[in-house]
């Protein structure tokens, strides 16, 4: 019995790797570090998700995509997806796979460290140049900023650093 429960959790984790950010299809919610807990009780699966930004309009869509994907596993009878706010999602939860997925989409991954004055720096995701300027801290979605690379002359986006130290 113990074995079965264990493997169902693993199956759920496996399929969640296929649930992508609806706005960045090269990264999954696992890569982004949004999945805090998968708990299997018999054939009922409870999944706890950390929202990146509270006003993110993609949250409902993500929830629905998780439900549809996990329900497709034949052993699963019911899926309960819950958004939780503690711990807070932070940008250092993004995995290495997530960071390269972002880059592949043309988005610079969030900087790992901020300077003591709160400023931060990223390199161009296309050419790797450090010669970039910040155009707008706010971008097309809540989690992204708009920058410009003076070297390869491309505008690009970056994931905002988000930390509980802010």
């Amino acid at each position, binding site marked *: 019995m113990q074995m079965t429960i264990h493997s169902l959790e693993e199956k759920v984790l496996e399929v969640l790797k296929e649930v992508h950010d609806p706005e960045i299809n090269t990264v999954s919610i696992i890569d982004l570090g949004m999945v805090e807990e998968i708990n299997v009780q018999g054939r009922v699966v409870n999944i706890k998700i950390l929202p990146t930004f*509270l006003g993110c309009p993609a949250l409902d869509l993500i929830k629905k995509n998780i439900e549809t994907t996990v329900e497709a596993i034949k052993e699963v009878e019911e899926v309960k997806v819950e958004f939780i706010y503690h711990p807070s999602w932070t940008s250092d939860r993004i995995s290495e796979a997530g960071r390269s997925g972002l880059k592949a989409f043309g988005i610079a991954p969030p900087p790992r460290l901020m300077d003591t004055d709160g400023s931060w720096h990223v390199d161009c995701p296309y050419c790797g140049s450090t010669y970039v300027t910040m155009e*707008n801290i706010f971008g097309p979605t809540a989690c992204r900023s708009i920058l410009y690379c003076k070297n390869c002359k491309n505008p690009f986006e970056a994931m905002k650093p988000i930390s509980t130290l802010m």
Partner: protein
Amino acid sequence: MTELNLTTAPENKEAVVSLLFQLADDDFLYSFRGSEWLGLAPHIEEDVASSSISQDSMGHAAMFYQLLEELGLGSADSLAHLRPAKERKNCILVERPNGEGDYMNVPKFDWAYAVVRNYFYTAAKKVKIESLKNSSYDPLAKVALKINIELYYHLLHWKTWFIQLFNSTEEARERMQSAVDRVMKDFGDVFSLGADGEQIVRLGLIEEEKVLVQRWKAQMKPVFESIHLPIPEIPSRTEANGRNFEHTEDLESAIATLSEVYRLDPAATW
């Protein structure tokens, strides 16, 4: 004080509910006024930035309404859209219109007023959220922790505009000064906790008004020093105290506009 005690005793629950409505209604109206600027901000990057801030803030309001829903007060959507002005607890400052006209016909909105209102309001919100991180009501403390992180960028944004416009041309400085005067006139109920204030503080939901006001001033001090102005005084009285359901007519028209679509079919699935 455990969470259970806080919401099982009726007089305690009343205090929790009162504070949640103040926080929810504040952010809801604040983001509505912000969203009216969409397409009208001084340049396109600012349009992206300020609408993003409005979107985040609407998310914060939704969280507070969600906490009320969990306490059995009704659905978050209906709490946001269907309550009349006389049941709202937002401060007066956030219900004021953006300027003359409206976005449907010849809006003559005042950017200086937007910058000052948004900066002062966000700085006040930051002070409250910091205090709420230690709230005795645990679900609220957790939400505050999350909101706090997002506020970092909002505060940075409005502070930058505020300092830059004050250090700009003579005309900019004059318009900013007159915006500061107008905003401060309405600032008297921003930190007020209303008629339930004593109970709210006694339960440890948030710190008392006096303490919050002192922190706001301390936060503003270096900024006002940099523009060579004294920190403006917060009036002890305002035209109305929104925390006690006293409002201006502007709130009624705002609610009528923002809930128009929702009221067409409250049962619709979005």
